[in-house]
């Protein structure tokens, strides 16, 4: 960590809620764009984001737009490989903030030439942003959807990522639309593979849904969608819906 005493003090105040969203956004909104080229300032931005306590839309402009436009990470539409190393390091040190996925996605969409590890870095950032206590917020869902909707097809890594997100957001107040997002991509991943001899994704999905310790509305919806798509499902898998329906009475299945 290389924050100076003033920056550290500012960060501490943000973390304990002593500074309002409005104040933080006003303070950082005044900063010259040249400051974004300063590694120390970028560290402060990531540290503040890691506190997950700034929810104003202005923060997206300051953090995500500011870094994409002014950090120098993108030159001539080429994303500097050092950007991932710096982001990865700051996330390790401070933890992942609300806009951790957003900045990685914004950089990937803005640059036309990306480092070779771009997909794996994005997946890792998404994966490690969900640790069991962070729900899928509207902002996160919007960004995660952008990643999955940009895929030509779902790889096994993508399916593992979906299952991880679902597992790590169980019992939390996820944004409306999450259940359908999860179920749709799980169904599509299985459909994409249905004409191939390799059935590893299908096996992965079925075995995970069968073994799930707490069946959620998202998982029930995924099983229902697979059934409706014409897949012959085992009695064991179908029974997950039956056994969980009573527990899920009153849950909004979010079918839109």
């Amino acid at each position: 960590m290389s924050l100076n005493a003033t920056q550290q003090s500012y960060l501490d105040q943000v973390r304990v809620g002593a500074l309002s969203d409005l104040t933080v956004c006003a303070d950082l909104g005044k900063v010259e764009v040249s400051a974004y080229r300063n590694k120390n300032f970028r560290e402060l931005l990531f540290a503040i984001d890691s506190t997950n306590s700034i929810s104003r839309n202005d923060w997206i402009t300051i953090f995500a737009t500011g870094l994409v436009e002014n950090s120098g990470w993108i030159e001539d539409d080429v994303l500097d490989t050092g950007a991932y190393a710096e982001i990865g390091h700051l996330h390790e040190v401070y933890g992942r903030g609300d806009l951790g996925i957003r900045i990685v996605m914004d950089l990937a969409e803005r640059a036309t030439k990306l480092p070779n590890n771009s997909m794996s870095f994005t997946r890792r950032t998404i994966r490690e942003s969900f640790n069991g206590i962070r729900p899928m917020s509207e902002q996160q869902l919007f960004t995660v959807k952008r990643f999955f909707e940009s895929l030509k097809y779902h790889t096994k890594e993508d399916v593992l990522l979906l299952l991880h997100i679902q597992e790590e957001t169980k019992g939390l107040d996820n944004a409306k639309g999450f259940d359908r997002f999860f179920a749709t991509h799980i169904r599509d991943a299985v459909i994409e593979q249905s004409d191939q001899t390799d059935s590893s994704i299908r096996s992965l999905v079925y075995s995970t849904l069968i073994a799930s310790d707490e069946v959620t509305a998202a998982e029930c919806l995924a099983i229902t969608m697979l059934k409706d798509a014409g897949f012959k499902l085992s009695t064991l898998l179908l029974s997950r819906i039956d056994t969980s329906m009573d527990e899920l009475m009153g849950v909004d299945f979010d079918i839109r």
Partner: protein
Amino acid sequence: MNAQLEENTTAVNGLLHGRSFVIDLEWKFPDDLDLAVLCVGHAGTPNTLVYYGSPGARSVAPFVHLAHESTGDGRMKQRREHMVVVNSNAHERMFIFVWDHNAVAEGRDANFLQDPEGYEVTVTDRRNQCVNLQQAPKTGNCILVGKIEGNVITNIGEPNLVTSIDNQMKQLSIMASKPERAMQ
């Protein structure tokens, strides 16, 4: 009041933000440690012990779940356990325990002193604020590491000798009630 207990129970380590947090146990020594949380219910509700034998749940009570157990053997062993607390408000207070699995089964001291920094318990809230609970008890095989009540996390570090894992719920409940008695 027992001076040692008073000292232990008044040592507030930090304030947690929100009602959700994760508790991580990582260790180097001894071979197999277990992480457990004793959830003391509000008036009229029973206590619940969340541990490897009863991993809890996130969507329903106790809203605490042991997410990852240690896996592997020998040098490949991953010495880490990870507990997710989805809703701490569901309980009046929670006590965090760490015990040496083999020493408890054999009813002997764990001899944690062989490596005073052999284990570390970290509590992380949604603001990525971490509180480290680390002690080096001289005796016992089961440590009452800390207490979470409301949003206050307190370091305790009280060693105890547990002789049976079959009735650990009862023993841990007694253990957890000691600091409470001392504060009365």
